[in-house]
């Protein structure tokens, strides 16, 4: 244990890792603070750069950039009422109301402080949950993996804030995309239409860049430019945070726990965690009437929640290769590329690398406090950059980055195509995250499904015979039926009230 920890320290105390982490932090802070550029997009655009780094440095950049971007989205949320990332959207109104009351320092300080605490709580959950789950996962057969993957996909459709039918359709679309290529149980070209470029299948990373970056540039073409940030002098940012921590320690803990749970659920990420925690804070508050008028309580809980979900999203990613959110989906791609294939054996064979990941998360969250304070003070200057200078650079990075993944122009075509797909899906209420999860998990789902069917000789019964498989199956089927039950309940309830009224 101690030796592994020392090994992990040795792994991360190289100049490459330190510089990579610092640069990625600054990058994450800047991208996160620019409205319309999300944390997922920041991470996706980093991937081509990670190819050229050592495995630990590559993961360091992703850990640092994603943690920083989630916090930094609070800055324009508080100052302009425009959330920098969707994860800050839940409480942007509240934070802006505080700014108008002259409490911008308190709002932003709470953003930094409770984000950092939330992030560290998330890492602790990763450290505590992952090893025992790995023990259990070692005994999993393809049946369990199949149900687990299905459960993951179903969770992603359940938590989407849209029609569950459209979310399931999005998931199927993603699975269909993963069918392309010759990497299938028969090794035959499938849906390649005779194009050699399609033989290797659709790479998840260019698809992600297209869906999250190109689609965002496309949306920017049709939306008006956000207003510039008024320059203002800030007082002490950290003043009063300790008092808040003592006053709202229960809310903070609840935010952390909710964030951790939502992070572990596949497909549900930081934005979901913030929405749920903000709503919960309002529901259980002693003074709910203050919410919406610039009350810090909701900020504490939601800020603690969205950063906690970032680290806990790595639990299913590292254990099963099932992404906890879209950022973890990108991280999985990088892990595979770097030879750290997700799976329970990762915790026994590459234990020092795992400890290195924990340590990097902790360091990133501690670094967030000083860097975040600097960022708040210079944000007014960074937000001066008009969209017409940022978006063209994003476009260039999309083109070059997707080319760099395989030194192949087909990557650029993939990015363009998925930009259009992502844009059209989003505009029509089809959740993009569900499709992304389908693309990332497709091969794994198919492998587990087909291997299980071959083992069982075409029979369905063995899918339910092992105890863990049966439990997972029950959960997956329950998740599938849940929307139907909600729908039926809503149908029955108005009828009941109508009947009661007529009586």
């Amino acid at each position, binding site marked *: 244990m101690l030796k592994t920890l020392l090994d992990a320290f040795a792994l991360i105390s190289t100049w490459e890792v330190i510089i990579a982490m610092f640069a990625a932090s600054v990058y994450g802070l800047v991208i996160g603070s620019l409205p319309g550029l999300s944390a997922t997009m920041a991470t996706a655009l980093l991937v*081509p*750069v990670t*190819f*050229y780094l050592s495995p630990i440095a590559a993961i360091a950049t992703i850990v640092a950039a994603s943690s920083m971007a989630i916090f930094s989205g609070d800055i324009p949320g508080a100052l*302009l*009422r*425009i*959330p920098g990332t969707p994860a800050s*959207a839940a409480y*942007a109104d509240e934070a802006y109301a505080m700014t108008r009351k002259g409490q911008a320092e308190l709002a932003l300080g709470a953003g930094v402080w409770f984000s950092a605490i939330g992030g560290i709580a998330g890492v602790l959950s990763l450290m505590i949950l992952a090893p025992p789950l790995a023990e259990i996962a070692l005994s999993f057969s393809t049946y369990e993996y199949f149900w687990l993957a299905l459960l993951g996909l179903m969770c992603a459709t359940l938590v989407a804030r*849209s*029609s*569950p*039918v459209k979310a*399931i*359709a999005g998931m*199927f*679309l993603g699975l*269909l995309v993963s*069918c392309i290529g010759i990497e299938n*149980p*028969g090794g*035959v070209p*499938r*849906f390649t239409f005779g194009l050699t470029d399609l033989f290797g299948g659709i790479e998840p990373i260019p698809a992600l860049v297209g869906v999250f970056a*190109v689609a965002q540039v*496309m*949306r*920017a*073409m*049709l939306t*008006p430019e*956000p207003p510039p940030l008024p320059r203002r002098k800030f007082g002490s940012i950290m003043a009063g945070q300790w008092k808040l921590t003592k006053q709202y320690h229960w809310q903070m803990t609840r935010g952390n726990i909710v964030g951790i749970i939502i992070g572990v659920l596949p497909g549900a990420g930081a934005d979901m965690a913030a929405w749920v925690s903000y709503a919960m804070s309002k529901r259980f508050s002693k003074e709910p009437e203050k919410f919406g008028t610039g009350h810090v309580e909701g900020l504490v809980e939601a800020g603690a929640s969205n950063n906690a979900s970032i680290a806990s999203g790595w639990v299913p990613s590292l254990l099963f290769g099932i992404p906890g959110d879209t950022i973890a989906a990108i991280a999985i791609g990088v892990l595979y590329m770097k030879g750290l294939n997700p799976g329970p054996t990762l915790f026994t064979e590459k234990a020092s690398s795992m400890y290195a990941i924990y340590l990097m998360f902790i360091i990133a969250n501690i670094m967030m406090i000083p860097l975040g304070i600097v960022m708040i003070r210079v944000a007014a200057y960074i937000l001066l950059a*008009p969209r*017409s200078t940022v*978006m*063209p*650079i994003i*476009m*260039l990075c999309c*083109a*070059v980055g997707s080319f*760099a993944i395989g030194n192949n122009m087909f990557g*650029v075509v993939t990015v*363009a195509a998925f*930009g*259009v797909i992502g*844009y*059209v899906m989003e*505009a*029509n*209420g*089809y959740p993009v995250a569900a499709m992304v999860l389908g693309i990332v998990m497709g091969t794994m789902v198919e492998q587990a*499904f*087909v291997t299980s069917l*071959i083992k069982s*000789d075409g029979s369905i019964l063995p899918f339910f015979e092992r105890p863990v498989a049966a439990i997972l199956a029950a959960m997956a089927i329950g998740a599938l039926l849940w*929307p139907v039950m909600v*729908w039926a309940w*809503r149908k029955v309830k108005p009828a009941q009230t109508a009947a009661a009224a007529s009586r």
Partner: protein
Amino acid sequence: MRLPDSVTGSFLVALGAAAAYGGWILPPVPGQPVGPNVFPLVIGSGLALCGVAIVFGIGHSFEEEEELIPLEDGQAAAPPPQGRLESKLYGLRALLPPALLLFYVLAADRLGFIITAAIMVYVTSTALGAKWKLALPLAALSPFAIHLIFGKLLRVPLPAGLLPTPW
């Protein structure tokens, strides 16, 4: 680009049916009862079923909440361009980014990275409302910066084309 549910749903039915058929006609693997054809068959049928449900408006009641979430403030207040024809053309602007990426695919090898990238930056920047005073220097400088990072530091073989970089 908001299409009626009946249109997107019908498209999904067609796509699902095509995928299922495509899976059906795949040759079976000798000696292996479950081959590469099963998964597309399942996915395709599922997709088609979802499409049917969407056409009939099942699950639509869950969508109401989505309107309340402003991803970017002011998105709802998109500028109202005059006339129907103009608003249609305005909507087409969204296709500019993917079109530029395809332009990059076609032109980069011949023109080289620097020139192609400069054109992309200039067009995107102007389309987002930048004056030439801003767009021109940006288009002249940013390709070199990107080339320095990706081409020089990360050794991505970017095409040189007509205008090789000084390094």
